[in-house]
């Protein structure tokens, strides 16, 4: 694993990582969203393992494997279960049409790069140049959550944000202490679990989990 | 030795004022009667009233408590203390040591004792008189203190003895516009404090118009005597202060016996003169309606404020 190869692999993972995020914005079917999410989980694991290998830090490898398991396996599995229980979640009816979303995605990525410049200047390691990708994915996740109507797309938005933050953490600092990672992961798992129960309960009581109908609850 | 002498003179001064007070009331009544064409009684009539009242038994209403019985001695005590410590005969030692703000405060304490007694009787007139007396006392206070301010600004201290000595030292300082305005303000305040004509009519029988009299309707016998005597002393004290602060000549500045006696003589003449002027003034003025009194007091307050400003601009 010469340095040049690992650097190229790292760039590949980051590239795919960003691409999957844009894909999530692009696709409408929920099932394709879940597969994109799984791919992104794998890419994140790739980044983690590559960086761990670079720093020859055993603990970081453990973390990478943990993340991989969580992001690529457990969460997609949970999402699939929700997806199967809620038949009408086929179509994520977006508030903002797809082309506008993609333009917004581009704008957000540019903003991420501009905002990350001081961060990149500071960071010691070479891999830090890729940190803007993490920030971009966070912004995209946020955008997804804000503009999609289905409850399940909120969950996916949150997951994207979490992947983005983890990516930033790995790229900028070259590895996150175990405790922090455990904490974050536990939170994430819990969040998804709760959202999953919420969505199924919503479905049982109200039928379509279209969030706009939920407005009547408010008044 | 001079310490004991000073205390003795103070006691003598208090005694002199106590004896002089009814005579001052007698003089005001006589002058007033003469101007109204009446053949007035002798000047000693108030003394005879006091002596008769002292022999009669006091009565107190069933629901009244300690405040009713304690008011006459408190009123007399405050008058005695001011009489002993203010510079009437001499400005040396204890007699000249009183501070003007303390004198104003002690006199106010006497008024408060009487107003509480008025309320303690539980009668409508007692409450009415007490409420009006307090309203007027509250409005007189700014005038009194501002005229004090005007006087003390000229001298640099509110100590009565110092003010009188300063007036003695350079007589023309007494005739500056500041002290004349202060004199006018203090004169109006005196009328209000001692319930004389423009503010209250001491010889009225119609309870609804009374201010001071309404509070003492329930007193009789020696209580009434003490109150009448103390009120007469308050009038004498205030006239004496007016006389000495603005015409300080003849007051004894050393402790020699001759000077003290001369001082006493001068003082008596000045006070009786002022009392006569007061009585004469009363004949020409009618009693103001209660809610015109604040305007009068606001006027005197304005005079006092002008006095203070004048003492800055001119002094």
């Amino acid at each position, binding site marked *: 694993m010469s340095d040049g190869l690992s650097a190229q692999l790292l760039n590949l993972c980051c590239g795919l990582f960003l691409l999957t995020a844009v894909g999530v914005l692009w696709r409408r079917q929920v099932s394709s969203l879940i597969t994109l999410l799984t791919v992104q989980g794998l890419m994140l694991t790739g980044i983690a393992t590559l960086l761990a290998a670079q720093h020859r830090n055993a603990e970081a490898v453990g973390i990478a494997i943990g993340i991989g398991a969580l992001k690529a396996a457990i969460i997609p599995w949970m999402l699939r279960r929700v997806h199967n229980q809620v038949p009408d979640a086929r179509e994520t009816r977006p508030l903002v049409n797809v082309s506008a979303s993609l333009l917004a995605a581009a704008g957000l990525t540019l903003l991420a790069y501009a905002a990350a410049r001081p961060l990149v200047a500071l960071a010691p390691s070479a891999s830090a140049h890729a940190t803007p990708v993490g920030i971009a994915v966070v912004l995209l996740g946020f955008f997804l959550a804000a503009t999609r109507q289905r409850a399940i797309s909120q969950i996916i938005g949150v997951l994207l944000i979490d992947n983005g933050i983890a990516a930033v953490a790995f790229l900028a600092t070259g590895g996150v202490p175990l405790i922090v990672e455990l904490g974050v992961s536990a939170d994430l798992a819990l969040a998804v679990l709760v959202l999953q129960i919420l969505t199924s309960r919503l479905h049982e009581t109200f039928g379509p989990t279209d969030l706009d109908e939920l407005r009547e609850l408010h008044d | 030795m001079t310490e004991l002498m000073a205390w003795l003179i103070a006691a003598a001064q208090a005694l002199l004022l106590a004896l002089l007070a009814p005579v001052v009331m007698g003089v005001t009544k006589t002058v007033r*009667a003469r*101007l109204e*064409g*009446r053949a007035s*009684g002798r000047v000693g*009539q108030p003394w005879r009233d006091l002596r*008769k009242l002292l022999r009669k038994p006091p009565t107190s209403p069933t629901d009244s408590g300690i405040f009713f019985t304690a008011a006459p001695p408190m009123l007399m005590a405050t008058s005695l203390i001011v009489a002993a410590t203010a510079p009437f005969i001499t400005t040396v030692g204890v007699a000249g040591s009183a501070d003007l703000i303390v004198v104003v405060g002690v006199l106010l304490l006497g008024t408060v004792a009487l107003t509480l007694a008025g309320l303690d009787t539980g009668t409508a007139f007692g409450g009415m008189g007490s409420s009006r007396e307090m309203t007027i006392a509250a409005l007189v206070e700014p005038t009194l203190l501002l005229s004090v301010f005007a006087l003390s600004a000229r001298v640099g201290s509110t100590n009565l003895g110092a003010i009188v000595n300063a007036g003695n030292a350079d007589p023309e300082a007494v005739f500056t516009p500041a002290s004349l305005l202060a004199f006018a303000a203090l004169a109006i305040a005196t009328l209000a404090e001692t319930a004389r004509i423009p503010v209250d009519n001491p010889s009225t029988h119609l309870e609804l118009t009374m201010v001071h009299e309404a509070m003492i309707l329930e*007193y009789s016998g020696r209580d*009434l005597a003490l109150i009448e005597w103390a009120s007469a002393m308050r009038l004498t004290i205030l006239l004496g202060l007016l006389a000495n602060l603005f015409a300080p000549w003849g007051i004894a500045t050393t402790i020699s016996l001759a000077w003290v006696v001369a001082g006493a003589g001068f003082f008596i003449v000045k006070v009786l003169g002022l009392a006569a002027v007061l009585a004469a003034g009363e004949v020409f003025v009618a009693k103001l309606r209660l809610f015109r009194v604040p305007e009068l007091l606001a006027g005197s307050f304005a005079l006092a404020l002008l006095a203070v400003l004048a003492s800055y601009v001119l002094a």
Partner: protein
Amino acid sequence: MARVGLFGKILKTGRVAEPAVPADETVPKAAGLGGSVQVRHVDAGSCNGCEIEIGQAFSPVYDAERHGVRLVASPRHADVLTVTGPVTVNMAGPLRKTFDAMPEPRLVVAVGDCARNCGVFAGGHGVHGSVAEVVPVDVHIPGCPPEPAQIVATLRGLSGR
């Protein structure tokens, strides 16, 4: 110019009071008053004729004040209680209360015939009786109404000045 006008008038009129009236004989109880008599007046149902005369007694012309006699507002301050008119049914209680409210030594002067023996109103429907039946009377002043000089003489007798 009102002030100067008034002052001028005062100087012009000078003394209005007439020479003092000789005093009547005094009452033993009055000795304790020592020349200072404070009078509280109660109208126990009179036709106001006597009131006017008593008012004149204290006016500048008769001037009872020169003998040390003064009208006061409350019976607590008074030594002498002057009562006029036959005591009507309604005024009997209040008259009694006024007399009780006065501190010792106290005297009652019944002014006018009505006070003495109900005068013209004797036997009237609302009349309770003469003053003597309600409160102990020390001096009676006859007349309907009595002269102010007579009232001043009696009061002067009480004050002894």
